[in-house]
Every structure is written in structure tokens, then in C-alpha cells.
């Protein structure tokens, strides 16, 4: 198995963050109660998504400048994993919202921005599916990716903070670091972040390697 050190690290970090996330003590806050532990699972989905979309963005630029098809494959598979994490993030967020806010969805800037960001990347896949020629598909999709990534960042990270939002960390609502996030919570939180990012990268590399093999077998 190639380069196994970071894959082992990924498994160790995730198993640690799952166990510690459920067992370790957390601050007892009203409304949230035990659901504050979602911090270790829901938020890393979004960190993971953003990181994978950065990878997709970089490889799109690399594909445009070099023309190597492998870069295009990495771009699309990284976007695939990014969207998967995004869907999981939205689903877990909806569950958490039902529990604490009383509704699965609210008309909130952050939530709507997340949904719109996801739709933009779904449009990326529709665009890819509509073009037959491989080189043309890669080029047009790469350009779309280069436009959609900054839009996504502005939508999810910048816009909600400019206005009132129910979501923690945006527009008048304190983020969780305001609630005495001591060092222990931080360790578990960042372990989960790194673990899920590594997991996303791992699955992306597997899919790219699979595509490579398929291409080789077709020749």
C-alpha cells in the first residue's frame, strides 16, 4: 500500500476523536446540553469540504496551465468528496438544528449560503456530464471551478458574518470559542478536523488511482 503513514494517522486521529469526543467532559451549557459534542463531527465536515475544494481549485488551475489529464481527474474527484462532505455537513446540521432550534431548517443567511454553495458545485457536475469531448470538458469545467470556488468562500464564510445569523460564529452570535473552549476540546476538535481532511484526501486518491487503472486497461 502506497504512502501508508498518513492513512494510519487518519485512522488513529478519527478513532481518537470519536472516542474522546463522546467520552471526555464538555461544558454544560443550556439549550445545547450534550449536543455540543457535535462540534467534533459537524464542523469538521465543513473544514474537510473547504480543504478538498481548495485542492480541486488548485488542480483545476494546474490542468489549465499544463493540460495533463491526471490533474483534471484529481480536480473532479476532490470536488466529489467535497460535495459528499458538504451533504453530510448539511444533514448533520439539520439534525442538530431540529434538536436545538426546533426546526430542521430556518431562513438563515449561513444555511441558505451553504445550500447555494452546494448547488453551485452540483452545477459543476452537471456541466461536466454535458460535454462529450474530454479536453473540452476538462477546460470548461476547470474554468467553472475557478469561478465557483471564490464564490463559495464568499458565500459561506464572509456573507453570513456581515448580517444577523442564528448560526454560531456569525453575525452577532458568538462562536463556540467564546464558550471557554479549553485546551482539551481544542485537541479533539483539531484531531477530528485533520482526520476527516485526511480521510477525504485518501478516498480522493483511491478514486483517481482507480480511474488511472481503468484508462490503462482501456488502451
Amino acid at each position: 500500500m502506497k504512502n501508508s503513514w498518513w492513512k494510519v494517522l487518519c485512522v488513529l486521529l478519527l478513532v481518537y476523536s470519536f472516542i474522546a469526543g463522546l467520552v471526555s467532559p464538555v461544558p454544560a451549557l443550556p439549550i445545547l446540553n450534550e449536543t455540543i459534542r457535535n462540534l467534533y463531527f459537524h464542523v469538521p465536515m465543513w473544514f474537510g469540504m473547504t480543504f478538498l475544494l481548495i485542492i480541486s481549485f488548485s488542480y483545476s488551475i494546474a490542468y489549465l496551465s499544463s493540460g495533463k489529464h491526471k490533474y483534471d481527474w484529481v480536480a473532479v474527484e476532490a470536488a466529489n468528496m467535497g460535495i459528499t462532505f458538504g451533504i453530510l455537513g448539511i444533514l448533520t446540521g439539520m439534525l442538530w438544528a431540529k434538536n436545538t432550534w426546533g426546526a430542521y431548517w430556518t431562513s438563515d443567511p449561513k444555511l441558505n449560503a451553504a445550500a447555494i454553495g452546494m448547488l453551485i458545485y452540483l452545477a459543476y457536475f452537471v456541466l461536466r456530464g454535458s460535454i462529450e469531448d474530454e479536453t473540452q470538458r476538462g477546460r470548461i469545467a476547470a474554468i467553472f471551478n475557478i469561478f465557483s470556488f471564490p464564490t463559495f468562500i464568499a458565500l459561506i464564510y464572509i456573507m453570513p458574518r456581515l448580517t444577523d445569523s442564528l448560526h454560531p460564529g456569525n453575525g452577532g452570535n458568538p462562536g463556540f470559542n467564546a464558550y471557554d473552549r479549553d485546551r482539551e476540546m481544542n485537541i479533539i476538535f483539531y484531531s477530528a478536523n485533520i482526520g476527516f481532511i485526511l480521510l477525504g484526501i485518501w478516498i480522493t486518491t483511491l478514486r483517481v488511482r482507480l480511474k488511472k487503472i481503468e484508462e490503462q486497461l482501456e488502451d
Partner: protein
Amino acid sequence: MMKRIAFLVLVIGCVFLPSLSNAQTVEMADQFRAEGKFFVVLAVIIVILIGIFSYLFMLDTKISKIEKRLKK
């Protein structure tokens, strides 16, 4: 005289102020843990996790084998 009575009423009344706020402790899942049931949940989650990771490792080694064969 009236001032003293009013003052006393206010001071004694202050004793009851804490009960006006949500002074009761925030509910956490301590009962669930004390009964030991919590660790069953934890074990289930870990088993599922390990299962998924084993599958991922197996996929990885399979792809590596095919890649090696193609290289020859």
C-alpha cells in the same frame, strides 16, 4: 419605622432572587453514563468505524496490486 420595615423586606426578599433564574443545573447525560449503557453505544460506534476503515484498507491494497500488475 416604615423605612426600616421596607429595608428589611427588601433584604429578606433578596434571599429568594437566585431561584428566579434557571439556577437548576443544565441536564447532561450523566444518568445514561452511570447506568453503563453509554459504553455499549460507544462500542457500537467504534465497531462500525473500524469496519469502515478495514474496508477502505482492503480497497487500497486491491488497487495497489492491480497497479503493480499493470506496471510489469
